[in-house]
């Protein structure tokens, strides 16, 4: 094993500390943005009498204005695995709402992340291998063209052209409006059809970064002395490109991939708004608008846990990929 139990314990302890600090920030952030959740809910129902507001405030457990008391209660609930009850969707527990949105978001952002890394790494690798060749020139210019376009505009244009004008894809949502009586295959086909436009929009904007990083790392590795020796050995180009060049060039990009995987549960706010996609991003956005403190805390905390976990995982996997790195 490349890492000691002591090191592992230290890393896990540090991860837990990070999560605690994130949880504290998640408690403070919604309260610092001003406004009043009871007021917000009352206004939306049109029954904003002082008595209603007072009643809602009491119901939400916010009648004690002492943040210390609220913070204690929040932490107490948290260590018992209780994320609280949503204000907006009262009395649904936050965990229920998050778990309902999570599969959609994970399916959307995970597939977009995997595809954009796969495309970016492949084009970056081939582009560097045949520097100045057509893959390099066409790939880099298209990727940067999309990278340069404002994301929300690109997403809206995709909806406008492919959903509204051409009608090839649905305008929004994650599943067909009626899912009763569908065979599993029809269900999957429907989900894929709803996912194509949002995934495409994410892939188009995020590929350029992965492509460029891979391409530059690859160019550096290609000019290393060991590449010349590998070539002198009479290896086939395929083996040279993959086993010798890309194997070493992917190392810096790997950390980026792991961090992106952590962000998957955070959702893609703009994407989910534009495509009316019922994921975590949209839920968080609505929670912020309605001052739904427990929802905001819950969504942010889940993101923090995922990012910290992905980071830890990246640190543990990295030494297996790069023998020069040992964790002690």
């Amino acid at each position, binding site marked *: 094993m490349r890492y000691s139990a002591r090191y592992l314990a230290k890393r896990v302890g540090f991860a837990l500390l990070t999560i605690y600090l994130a949880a504290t920030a998640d408690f403070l952030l919604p309260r610092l943005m001003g406004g009043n959740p009871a007021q917000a809910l009352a206004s939306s129902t049109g029954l904003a009498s002082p008595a209603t507001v007072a009643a809602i405030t009491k119901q939400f457990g916010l009648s004690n204005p002492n943040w210390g008391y609220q913070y204690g209660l929040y932490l107490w609930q948290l260590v018992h695995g209780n994320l609280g009850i949503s204000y907006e969707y009262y009395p649904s527990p936050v965990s229920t709402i998050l778990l309902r949105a999570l599969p959609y978001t994970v399916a959307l952002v995970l597939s977009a992340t995997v595809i954009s890394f796969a495309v970016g790494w492949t084009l970056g690798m081939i582009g560097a291998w045949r520097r100045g060749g057509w893959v390099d020139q066409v790939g880099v210019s298209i990727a940067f063209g999309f990278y340069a376009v404002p994301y929300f505009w690109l997403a809206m244009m995709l909806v406008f052209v492919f959903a509204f004008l051409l009608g090839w894809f649905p305008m929004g949502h994650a599943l067909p409006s009626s899912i009763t009586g569908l065979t599993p295959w029809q269900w999957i086909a429907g989900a894929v059809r709803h996912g194509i436009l949002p995934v495409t929009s994410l892939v188009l904007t995020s590929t350029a970064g992965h492509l460029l990083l891979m391409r530059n790392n690859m160019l550096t590795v290609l000019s290393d002395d060991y590449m010349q020796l590998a070539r*002198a050995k009479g290896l086939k180009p395929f083996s040279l490109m993959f086993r010798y060049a890309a*194997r070493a060039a992917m190392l810096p990009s790997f950390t980026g991939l792991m961090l992106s995987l952590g962000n998957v549960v955070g959702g893609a706010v703009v994407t989910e708004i534009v495509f009316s996609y019922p994921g975590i991003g949209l839920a968080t956005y609505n929670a912020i608008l309605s001052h739904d403190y427990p929802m905001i805390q819950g969504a942010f905390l889940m993101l923090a846990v995922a990012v910290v976990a992905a980071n830890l995982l990246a640190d543990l996997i990295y030494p297996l*990929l790069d023998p020069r790195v040992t964790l002690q």
Partner: protein
Amino acid sequence: MGVARTAEGSERDTVLRVQGLDVDYLTERGVVAAVRDMTFSLRAGEIVGIAGESGCGKSTLAHAVCGLLHPPARIRQGRIELGGQDLVGLSERAMRSIRWERIAIVPQSAMNNLSPVLRIGDQIADAILAHRPSTRPQAREKARALLQMVGMLGHHAASYPHELSGGMRQRAVIAMALALHPEVLVLDEPTTALDVMVQATILGAIRDLRDQLGFAVLLITHDLPLLLQTVDRILVMYGGRLVESGSADGIWRRPRHPYTQALLEAFPPLTGPRRRLNAIQGLPPNLLQPPVGCGFAPRCPLTMDRCEEQRPPWTIQGDAAAACWRLDGEGEA
């Protein structure tokens, strides 16, 4: 040219013959004449050293011989015959099957010759698997035997390059180079980054292996004294051209070209009385505008009028030869 410049050796056991080789670098500032009119041959089991200072074209020559030149470098003309087959103009695919199988190279940087993320044994096995029908376990087993042959331990096959010293890494590369029993081993400054003791043991190992396996060695270095104790025959290059050739012993006792003389004086003797070391004054010629006459003339203490105007002829004297006007008229050919 036409005349065989190297007087020695029978035709039969010649494994490598380079004839009239010119290599250019096509740069934005013009054509750099990196190697000009290089002619020499290498017999089976012979160790030939090529000496010269930085930028004299010796590494370019090494890469040309191994078919490893790539743009902006280009072979302008000449032949590189390996066992009678001309390598110049061979397709990349044809060249690939010759590389390592018949000619292997140990490049300059001992520190950076191996992929940092693959085990030593696997990097050796890759070379074997690229040329021989074999399984990876068999190739790994062969790799362990090769490492033992160059004085390492079998378990070093499981090591990564960063776990070994520079000398060990270079031994591993030599083991790798011998994996397929090549006819020619090109060593391009193989010990530059290593200390003197390691240098001596590695070159000693190469001599021993040569005695066992019978491959020919082309050893390229800027270190002339190192060549004197290691090789059978020495070629001295200056400004992309051959200026002198002779036996190690002959060059040590009677260097014919003033440049060779100057190179010998630039290194301290290990035994004998202390003497003042002489650095060679001036700079090597700019190969963007190759000199018309002798390239060494501007730095030469013995220069004459015609040195700068006319290229000196190749003058053969016994088993030695040099290109210097001072020898003109003394020659036999």
